[in-house]
């Protein structure tokens, strides 16, 4: 399946300095009933974003018109809990292309990478720098350069790690399944011998 290609992104960012944001917060279970990948964005952070009678929660950052952009900056251990890929779909569908945190849960990180959302791991210190910069001036632009694996804000920058294979996939819009399908014969032999 062709996916978006990712090389460099310059955008304003949305701060969400909460730790251990689990996938039940990103997309609550009751919204997992769709059978397609689209439309999950409207329920992203549903129970933090809206009251039980569907009114926007005023002090939640996604309801604050000052903040916007394609980058979400969140506290450590982002995406823990359930393996629901719907969390990555919701983040993508809402319009985010990058999530920055000082630590990601494993399954979420994989799911994000499989859906053209780049998880950028930064140091605690750089995370604080980013959050402060955005909170002080919501118009602050953050640059995420995948080719050079570098994230920058206000002239300060930090290198980030990404698996070389996944980097290649993101840059070219490749899918894991393309590679696996190319191994069909070898897998068939393995299955028979097993």
């Amino acid at each position: 399946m062709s996916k978006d290609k990712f090389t460099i992104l310059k955008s304003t960012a949305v701060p969400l300095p909460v730790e251990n944001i689990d996938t039940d917060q990103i997309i609550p279970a009751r919204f997992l009933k769709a059978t397609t990948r689209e439309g999950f964005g409207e329920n992203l952070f549903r129970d933090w974003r809206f009251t039980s009678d569907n009114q926007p929660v005023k002090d939640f950052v996604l309801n604050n018109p000052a903040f916007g952009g394609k980058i979400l900056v969140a506290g450590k251990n982002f995406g823990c809990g359930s393996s629901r890929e719907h969390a990555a779909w919701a983040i993508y569908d809402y319009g985010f292309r990058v999530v920055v945190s000082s630590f990601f849960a494993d399954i979420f990180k994989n799911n994000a990478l499989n859906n053209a959302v780049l998880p950028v791991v930064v140091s605690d210190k750089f995370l604080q720098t980013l959050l402060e910069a955005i909170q002080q001036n919501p118009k602050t632009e953050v640059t995420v350069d995948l080719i050079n694996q570098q994230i920058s804000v206000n002239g300060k920058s930090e290198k980030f790690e990404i698996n070389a294979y996944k980097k290649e996939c993101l840059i070219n819009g490749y899918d894991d399944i393309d590679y696996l399908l190319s191994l069909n014969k070898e897998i068939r032999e393995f299955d028979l011998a097993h």
Partner: protein
Amino acid sequence: MVKRADGYPDALFIDRHFIHEVTSPQAFDGLRKRGIKVFNVNRTTATADHNVPTKDQHLPIKEALSRHQVETLRKNCKEFGVELYDLGHPFQGIVHIIGPELGLTQPGMTMVCGDSHTSTHGAFGSVAFGIGTSEVEQVLATQCILQYKPKTMKIEINGKLGKGVVSKDIILYIISKISASGATGFFVEYAGDAIRNLSMEARMTICNMSIEMGARGGLIAPDETTFRYMKGRRFAPQGEAFDKAVEKWKQLPSDEGAVYDVVLKYDAADIEPMITYGTNPGMGMKVTDRIPTVEELKEINEQASFKKSLDYMGLEPGSALLGKPVDYVFIGSCTNARIEDLRLVASIVKGKKKAENVEVWVIPGSKQVEEQALKEGLNKVFEEAGFELRGPGCSACLGMNEDKVPPGKYCISTSNRNFEGRQGPKSRTFLASPLSAAVAAITGKVTDVREFI
């Protein structure tokens, strides 16, 4: 492993794949778009569990979206030729309960499912972990998944468990020590005589919650307890083939002196009945303890999240939980809804009545667990106590069906997650063992089970 190539993750062959209605529809869509079939239908098994009602399971599902999702699973399984244990089938149940009880889960297998609690199957010495839907599609299409070798962690528990302490307390204790992210990036092996002495059911509870400390998987070396459990299971090897399989399985345990990236050791005698007070499973304590104060937190960064969590729970930092009234008791989920869990609960409850202020739901993990409970007369014990025994499914563990804890209400739950809204919007969850949940049902409040037995 099928292939290790430079510049690519390893292509890992998957022996057993489980699917359910929530995380599979988009994967089947992907197959249709590419015009490909399921690689080997004999290696995938489906069941309906997350969405299903626990009352009137013989009737069509009332809620339209849930019904649509279960019907989509039916349609997909039929079209692609995958075996489905649908509602009403004698093998239907929570995917991580039915795999082991049917003998589909076997030592040494590689196993995946689009569900993070797939780690449960590690109790048999299998390599089992949760995956996302794109990966479900990969496995359906190629029977393989792309993986890098994880780091390894060994957690050893030695010594004798105290009175009223069961395997749920062991795992809640470990998570409270290392936090909800303490094992991220690791595969965990649980070892030590306190683990060895546990039944298979109890071992599954421990492996089940590996993901709650961030580990993709957790496993326990297979031994005589494992082989005894496997013998005679429907899809386990039979007769001579079983004996041969056991010989093979005996080769699986890690070598003496195997090196792990991290080794942690705990003394079983230090573990007491546990309960969580916050909104991630790492926020747990001995039931007799008090919640930490903000000042007691090691990291300043954590303070804001800690306060947010306790605000949500309606609890004061520094306060105790003993005696705190609860509104609901949920006994169920892939963590604690096996027959042994129901027996434990019944042993505490027999001849007693639930407190008036609580509603108690007992949700068996599978149709087979339900049948066994009826056979043993546990239903009578529950009925006399005023507990509601319903049909199998994931139920109030994640509130995808009608079983939801109302806003602001407290539920003591044998499930695995206390996240905000997990059991229903604004619901508040205390995670605990089936024993602790059972006594809370009787007293109507958080209680130290040791005062009761």
